[in-house]
């Protein structure tokens, strides 16, 4: 039916354009919410969710109670949901799509499928049409037909789907999110809204988590806090730690920073009725032996915790450390990476056998500050074509060069950038001092003598 026909029938109809992206987001939101029932939630096509509730139903009082709970909660959120519960994904899919609110016990799959139309087998429309054209109109008819001709004529997919639905073949439901090795949760009779209450709850959950981690001899490296809001929205707060951690107090501290940073983004609404703390990644935790006064003095732990707290509040890039890189280009010679603690070694690291680069007695002078992007400067004239400038203009101020050292010629890394022209990307660095004694690092990119591409000058760094 076109929009015009629909409008003719119902003049007050509201036309909204389909938005598959928004539908997808909504489905993902629902999948997040379904995390409260099982960690194994998968999205099926554009309109369905698979929940692998194996081993979870007793937590909700049995299969029937769980299904009712799911349905009633979805109903109160304003969704019309059809659900089926069966031993295989295929049977559950058929039950949800064609029976509605049915629980199929093991062995009953055949009885469930037999009267259903072919669409219940999750086969593509072309196969379905050709099956119908030969008179096979229900799943039961297909089941009764001999297998070999079916496979020969309609392909292996049909039998695969049939076998999966009947439980003869295993079908894996691939969950959206990796399953956390450990997680603790608390259902709350009264929803909580205050950040302080969440923090306190995190401390309690972390205390429970600690015994599990201790039993496994591990500490958490990545933690996630899931806050399930009453109306279905789920907030997921993840944070990483620099070293394995299991102390509830420290975990609570980290989440305190994270929650403080996210204060604006987390909308408690009517409150959270389920809080879950999961360990997404764990690593071996080695206990540090305390001395007789009971104090463990480990500076590394302090710094790791400090870095974690800063990062919890300000993001991953808030604490950086420099790493030297083998490159002659100054901007590549140092990389800054987020702070990670090097694993503590009990034995000194083995030195890799490699050819040592010859060390020079006088290493080239390098500035103490480097601009991230070299800033173009205006050089009107140089005394010699290849020499340092006499004066230059940088950030609208004129600088007079009193002394200069150089040039130090650095060519581009031809093995890295094939496209760049070696002549235009060659840099001649000069270390200069201005009239007030400030020392700068300038370079000229390109060479004189090329009328098409005149050389350009840049300010790259500052010396002490």
């Amino acid at each position, binding site marked *: 039916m076109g929009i015009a026909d629909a409008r003719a029938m119902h003049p007050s109809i509201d036309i909204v354009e389909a938005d598959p992206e928004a539908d997808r987001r909504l489905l993902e939101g629902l999948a997040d919410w379904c995390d409260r029932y099982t960690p194994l939630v998968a999205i099926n096509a554009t309109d369905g969710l698979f929940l692998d509730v194996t081993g979870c139903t007793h937590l909700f009082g049995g299969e029937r109670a769980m299904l009712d709970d799911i349905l009633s909660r979805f109903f109160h959120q304003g969704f019309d949901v059809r659900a089926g519960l069966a031993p295989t994904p295929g049977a559950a899919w058929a039950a949800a799509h064609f029976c509605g609110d049915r629980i199929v016990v093991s062995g009953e799959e055949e009885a469930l499928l037999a009267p259903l139309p072919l669409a219940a087998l999750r086969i593509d429309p072309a196969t379905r049409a050709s099956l119908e054209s030969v008179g096979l109109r229900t799943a039961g008819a297909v089941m009764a037909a001999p297998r070999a001709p079916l496979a020969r004529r309609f392909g292996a997919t049909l039998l695969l789907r049939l076998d999966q639905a009947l439980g003869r073949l295993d079908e894996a439901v691939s969950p959206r999110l990796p399953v956390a090795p450990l997680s603790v949760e608390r259902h709350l009779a009264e929803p909580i809204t205050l950040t302080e209450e969440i923090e306190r709850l995190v401390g309690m959950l972390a205390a429970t988590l600690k015994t599990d981690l201790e039993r496994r001899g591990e500490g958490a490296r990545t933690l996630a806090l899931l806050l399930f809001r009453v109306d279905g929205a789920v907030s997921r707060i993840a944070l990483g730690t620099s070293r394995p951690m299991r102390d509830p107090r420290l975990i609570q501290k980290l989440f305190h920073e994270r929650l403080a940073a996210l204060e604006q983004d987390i909308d408690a609404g009517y409150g959270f009725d389920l809080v879950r703390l999961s360990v997404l990644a764990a690593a071996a935790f080695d206990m540090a032996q305390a001395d007789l006064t009971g104090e463990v003095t480990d*500076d*590394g732990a*302090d*710094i790791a915790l*400090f*870095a974690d*707290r*800063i990062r919890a*509040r*300000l993001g991953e*890039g*808030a*604490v*950086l*450390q*420099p*790493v*030297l890189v083998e490159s002659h280009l*100054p901007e590549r*010679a*140092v990389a*800054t990476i987020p*702070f990670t603690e090097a694993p503590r070694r009990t034995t000194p690291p083995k030195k890799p056998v490699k050819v040592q680069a010859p060390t020079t007695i006088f*290493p080239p*002078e*390098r*500035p*103490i*500050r*480097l*601009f*991230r992007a070299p800033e173009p400067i205006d050089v009107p004239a140089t005394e010699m074509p290849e020499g340092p400038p006499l004066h230059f203009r940088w950030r609208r*101020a004129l600088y007079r060069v*009193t*002394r*200069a*050292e150089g040039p130090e010629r650095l060519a581009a890394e031809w093995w890295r950038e094939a496209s760049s022209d070696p002549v235009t990307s060659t840099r001649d660095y000069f*270390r*200069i*001092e201005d009239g*007030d*004694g*400030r*020392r*700068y690092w300038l370079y000229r990119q390109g060479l004189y003598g090329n009328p098409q591409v005149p050389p350009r000058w840049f300010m790259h*760094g*500052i*010396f*002490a």
Partner: protein
Amino acid sequence: MAISAVARETVFSLRRQIAKIEGTLPERLQAPAGAPLDADASAYVDLTIVRRGLAAALPDAFLPIGIERLDAALSGGLPKAALSEIHGLETRDAGAVAGFALSLTSLILKQAQGLPILWIGTSEIFREAGFPYARGLHASFGIKPEQLLFSEAPKLVDALWIAEEAARMTALAAVILEIRGNPQRLDLTATRRLHARAASAGRPVFLLRQAAEPEPTAAPVRLIVSSAPATPRDTIAGPLAGSIGRPAFTITIGKSRTALPGQFTLEWNPDERAFDERRGEEKRERAKNPVAVVSLPGGRKDPAAASGAVLAFPAVGSSTADNQPPPRERTAHLGPRRAG
């Protein structure tokens, strides 16, 4: 006289009490070395008491800069467990300001080896003045890349928060907080919080303020740093004309409880990791080559000078003959600085 001695004691104890109330910076009150303190002294003894502030704290409480005159002016050096302000008048002085702070850090790292340093800056200053470059820091100040931690905060509030958290850590050798301009948030309260944490952790916090006007803060010391022209590089054949030698700074004491305002020109020696003071040109010449190139005959006058014919190293003979500085320079500049 007994009365004046009693009065002096009272003043001493009152001042000590004030220092105690002020908390962090106990002062020692000391009469100058030459002042008579016995009973027959005049009644004006109290007026000549020198406030040698900060010196009564632990002997380890100061970071000697290594320049006698500057250390004397600051009465022992920069306080180690405190907030110290290092100002640059313009953003383009950022190299000198950072360089001076890093030289101080390098001096600290000589004692606290292996501990990392944290350099906090706002995004603004790192964009305006450049990001610290680990290779240059290693070459000029001997700070290894593994010892460096940087923290770039998008906002001043975040930078201050990181600095406060970092200032209380004993696992860091020093904290450098770099901020541009005179933001309103960096007021007396904020600096007092930083100072208090630094004092309780016993670690220095260097507050680098680029392009900032001096304003009241809780930092006990404020130094204003600008670049000074470097001397030419030394070679065997003498100074290399036109070359740029070791980094040099002009330090002005902007605020100190003990020192009068003064100006010093320091030169950082990256090889020794120590400061040299630059004085008059002739002094430098002498300090550069303290050992005679040709060994002098002991106890006799130089025969070469007597004969007047061999003139291979005329400078050596003249400098040994007259190595006294001009009297003007010695009296005025080398004596300990006093402030009432």
